[in-house]
């Protein structure tokens, strides 16, 4: 088995999901090359070289590869695909936009968001918002997949793989990034946070969302998350949405406040180690997955909880 793994990064830092994806790759085979495609991104390659289990880091740098445009990244992967039995990427925005292109160009299926490797050709993934788990066997000569980071514990950092430079493919030239509006916060990243305080429509306003949840999140060193309803109502930015169509998280502690627990939301958080629900409706479905529930008004309970932690 020869595995090619697309590293996720922003040219400056390696995204942690890469180390989780590598853990999945290690379950498939022992020859694993990590591909770092970008521009002026050698520090990323150096970081990738330290991940345990990497055979080679392949570094491709060019200005037209700086923005991670899927047309260019996919073309690069396709050009390098020969000889690999598996091509993997984390199931991030980049992985999801690039990998189907790679698969179609190679005339093979793509397997999305695997959560288990049963054997080198058999994988399990959630379908129907996680209400069912599908195990598929691939007959394709190369398996192209994205990997759900929360399903595989990250590998360690005791490696020292050689870094090789590889020539860049030509610019496809038919798409451009105009601008990026990235949310910056001093909080941990949702995807890797140990604790998440998540709010729903019950918070009732943007002001309340921040006034009520931030002190608790500050006290716990937690990331903030939200439901689609909270994002749609403008309480928080879209990148905080957790669920079937948002982020998938699995922290040690997930505190769900004023959210009902729709299946589409549960799809993104039900693998959390401990779930706490605070909701005034004792029948809310979130209580069916919560380890600990408090029935009552969040505007009283959350400040009381924050205070009790001091």
């Amino acid at each position: 088995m020869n595995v090619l793994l697309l590293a996720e990064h922003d040219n400056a830092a390696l995204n942690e999901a890469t180390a989780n994806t590598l853990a999945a790759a290690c379950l498939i085979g022992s020859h694993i090359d990590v591909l770092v495609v970008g521009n002026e991104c050698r520090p990323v390659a150096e970081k990738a070289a330290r991940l345990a289990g990497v055979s080679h880091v392949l570094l491709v740098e060019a200005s037209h590869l700086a923005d991670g445009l899927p047309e260019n990244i996919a073309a690069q992967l396709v050009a390098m695909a020969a000889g690999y039995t598996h091509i993997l990427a984390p199931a991030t925005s980049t992985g999801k936009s690039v990998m189907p292109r790679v698969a179609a160009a190679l005339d093979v299926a793509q397997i999305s968001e695997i959560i288990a490797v049963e054997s080198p050709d058999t994988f399990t993934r959630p379908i129907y918002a996680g209400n069912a788990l599908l195990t598929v066997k691939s007959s394709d000569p190369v398996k192209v997949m994205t990997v759900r980071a929360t399903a595989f514990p990250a590998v360690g950092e005791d490696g020292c793989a050689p870094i090789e430079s590889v020539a860049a493919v030509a610019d496809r030239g038919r798409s451009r990034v105009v601008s990026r509006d990235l949310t910056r916060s001093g909080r941990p990243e949702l995807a890797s946070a140990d604790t998440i305080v998540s709010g729903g429509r019950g918070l009732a306003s943007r002001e309340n969302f921040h006034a009520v949840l931030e002190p608790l999140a500050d006290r716990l060193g937690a990331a903030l998350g939200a439901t689609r309803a909270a994002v749609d109502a403008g309480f928080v930015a879209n990148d905080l949405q957790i669920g079937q169509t948002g982020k998938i998280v699995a922290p040690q502690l997930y505190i769900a406040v004023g959210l009902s627990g729709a299946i589409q939301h549960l799809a993104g958080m039900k693998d959390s180690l401990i779930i706490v629900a605070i909701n005034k409706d004792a029948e809310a479905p979130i209580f069916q997955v919560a380890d600990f529930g408090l029935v009552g008004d969040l505007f009283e309970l959350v400040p009381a909880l924050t205070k009790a932690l001091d």
Partner: protein
Amino acid sequence: MKVLVPVKRVVDYNVKVRVKSDGSGVETSNVRMSMNPFDEIAVEAAVRLKESGAVTEIVAVSAGNAGCQDTLRTALAMGADRGMLIETETELQPLAVAKLLKAVCDMEQPRVVLCGKQATDDDANQTGQMLAALLDWPQATCASQIVLSSDTATVVREIDGGLETVEIDLPGVVTADLRLNEPRYVTLPNLMKAKKKPIDVILAATLEVDIAPRLATLWVAEPPARPAGVKLNNVAELVAHLRNAGVIA
């Protein structure tokens, strides 16, 4: 400008699906079927672009069994001009759908294909990107805003860290995310009017593309259930439990 909108018929998102006891799949007989929610958003976006004058014709396409006629009728009632059913009883995986859609694009020559970002049954999030690759077109996935000019589409995309604006040359593929719009309700009069709009039926076999599934389903299982939790009486009890579990200091 002609826009093609692929629409998929899926189990309604309000239905909690059941895994069949023999593990061969999920129960889809006698459950409510609807248009994939992201495809409703894509149809709505196309209709609004037509209302604003940027688009002249909207063709809705669905691949699957005869039941997909209903989905196409819904698209027509929302404002699509005509429908195409690519009929087959074969289980269609995203690569197969992308190949069928490519064949349709070769015939119809749309300037934009506007897909949903993801089907809520297979949760694949692949077809639009695969179609773009097969056509060698650029793509803009997870759109929360679309502005068309005659040669380009400027698309605000929802990405992990926030928002990204990309400009793609046309022809191109755009996939719709949740916040692109709120789809209109289909009214009875519009549904009646839609009955007069044409739906072409094309047998998938006549398109001469390989649609055989590449992935064999070995089994489908229920996800492990979480053990029942407890409701607590007050905040102090909660803090004690969380300390005990070692998840707070």
